[in-house]
Every structure is written in C-alpha cells, then in structure tokens.
C-alpha cells in the first residue's frame, strides 16, 4: 500500500474515532439528563 494512501486511511480513522468519542460523550450526558428529567416529571 502506498504511504500516502496509508496516511489518508489513518487520518480518516483518527478523525472518525474523535467524532465517535465526542458523540458517545454527548450521548452519555443526554442519557443522564433524560433519567433526571424522567425522575423529576414522575415526582
């Protein structure tokens, strides 16, 4: 595999991993928020 292509693949993998990490972090915060909201609505 040419070095340029290898670098492009690694760059895309890194970018996607970063975006995925941010989205998973936001999802965890959202689930926490939903849980708190549901508890407060049901009280």
């Amino acid at each position, binding site marked *: 595999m*040419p070095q*340029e*292509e290898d670098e*492009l*693949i690694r760059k*895309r*993998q890194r*970018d*996607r991993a970063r*975006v995925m990490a941010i989205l998973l972090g936001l999802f965890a915060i*959202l689930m926490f*928020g*939903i849980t*708190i*909201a*549901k508890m*407060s*609505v049901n009280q």
Partner: protein
Amino acid sequence: MTSVPLTPATSAESLPADWRDLLALTKPRVMSLVVFTGLCGLLAAPGPVHWVLGFTAVLCIALGAGAAGALNQWYEADLDAKMKRTANRPLPAGRMTRQTALHFGVGLSVFSVVLMDLAANHLAAAILAISILFYVLVYTVWLKPRTAQNIVIGGAAGAFPPLIGWAAVTGDVTTLPILLFAIIFLWTPPHFWALSLFVRTDYANAGIPMLPVVAGIQNTRLQILLYTLPMIAATVAPWALGLTGWAYGIASIALSAIFLVLAIAVFANKATESKAMGPEKKLFAFSIVYLFALFAALVVDRWLI
C-alpha cells in the same frame, strides 16, 4: 464535505468514509425545515414538557430525518449520478460505499426511534418510525420512479414532524396537529413543482417522472395554482376553527395572499427556458419562507399572545 479526490488507487472500497460525508448523507439543509416544524409542533402542544425531554424529541426527529435522507441517497445513488444538482453527493462522487450508507441509515433509524420511545412515548416513536418507512419505502422506492404524483403522496413524509412533536408532549393527536400535517402535505406539491420546473432537464435526464417532464410545463403551472387553493384553506383553518388566536390568523392570511399572488404569476408565465423562470424561482424561495413564518406565527400565537 471532504474535498479529497479519490484516485483508482484510493477508492471508496479501501478507504473508511469521512465523517463529513456521513453528515452530508443526512441532508442537513433539508433537515432544518423538518426540525423547525417538529419543534413548532412540540411548542404549540398544550401542557408542559421538560426541556431535556423536549430537546431529545426534537433531536430524534432530526436523526430520523437524517436517517431517511441517508437511505434515500443509498437507494438513489445511480439516479443522483445523472443529475448536476446531486452528482457531487458522497455516493455518486465515489467517496463512500453503498453498504456504508445503508448501515449508517438503518442504524440511525433504529437509534432515533428507540431514543424517542425512551424520552417521549410509544405514539411519538411509532409516528417517527412510520414517517421514516413512508419516506424510504413509499416515496423513494415505490412512487418517485413510477408516477408524476410522487410528490403529492410522498409529501406526507415531510408532513409528519409537527405531528411527532405534538405527540411527544401530549401522547395523543388532535385536530390542530392533523391540520399542521395537512398544511405541509398540501404545501409540498407547489413547492417541489416550482423547483422541478426550472431543473426539469435534470429530472428528464435521470428518467424521474416529475410532473413537468410527464405532463408539460403549462399543466404543471396550472397544478401549482390549483394545489395552492386547498393549501391556503388548510393554512387558515386553525384560526377559522378557533384553534389559534388572531396573531396566527393575520399571519396565515397575509402569507397565503403573497403565496397566491406568486402562484398566479407562475401560472401567467409562458417561458419554457429555465433562465426566464423568475416567477417559479421566486415562488420556490418564498414557499420556504412561508412555511417557516407560518409555524413561527403558530408558536408566537401560543406563547406570546
């Protein structure tokens, strides 16, 4: 969207899709109107909603719309490649495999419906699921390649968001959200036919039987005017039936009057060249403003008056 050109050595098969191309699959510009009408449906509904749950419901509507857009692009990749307007999308441009788009679309669909069920209720989740399936199966797969009436029936897919927003708050569906559905349903044909008039050669080249391609330009102009009339009736109905206040009433009448004048200008235009289709371009641009302003007036009427 990425601008990295793919050479034969670095094809979509060997490269992981760029996240910006995955985002482009969701048609973010189309999504803005869907999110806005969904938010307005949610805000117009009676009863309180926790802001986190309301935010999640609107997020789910956005994700569902994005998923439907991705599945639409997965199915129409070959057609998109034939049209100038869509040739640079990730799939026809060869920046992504169809399998990636399919997995992304299905995954996002399931995620949005499950999250809606968790944050709101079964009814809102069910309507969201129906709207995704309707857009993908009924509109994209069945109607669009087969009939010039594709937009008329397919318009229902884009009309669901206010219904979903309302159901997320109340857990039921009453007359007002059904009228909001009817407004978007009847607004879609004049909106899309105005566009299809000045990009009809694109549709003709792709073999999509849009009305101007099948029935002719003048007949499409007449249909735009004819569909404008029931759309105006549905727009004014919430006020006429006493479901909204005077603020919405004034806004709906004023906006509808402008829409009607522009639709008459389209009907009066005899041009066949896209360059001379000024009235059609004006109507298309105003139709977007029309829907935004109408739903904004609904929320203003509910909260501020």
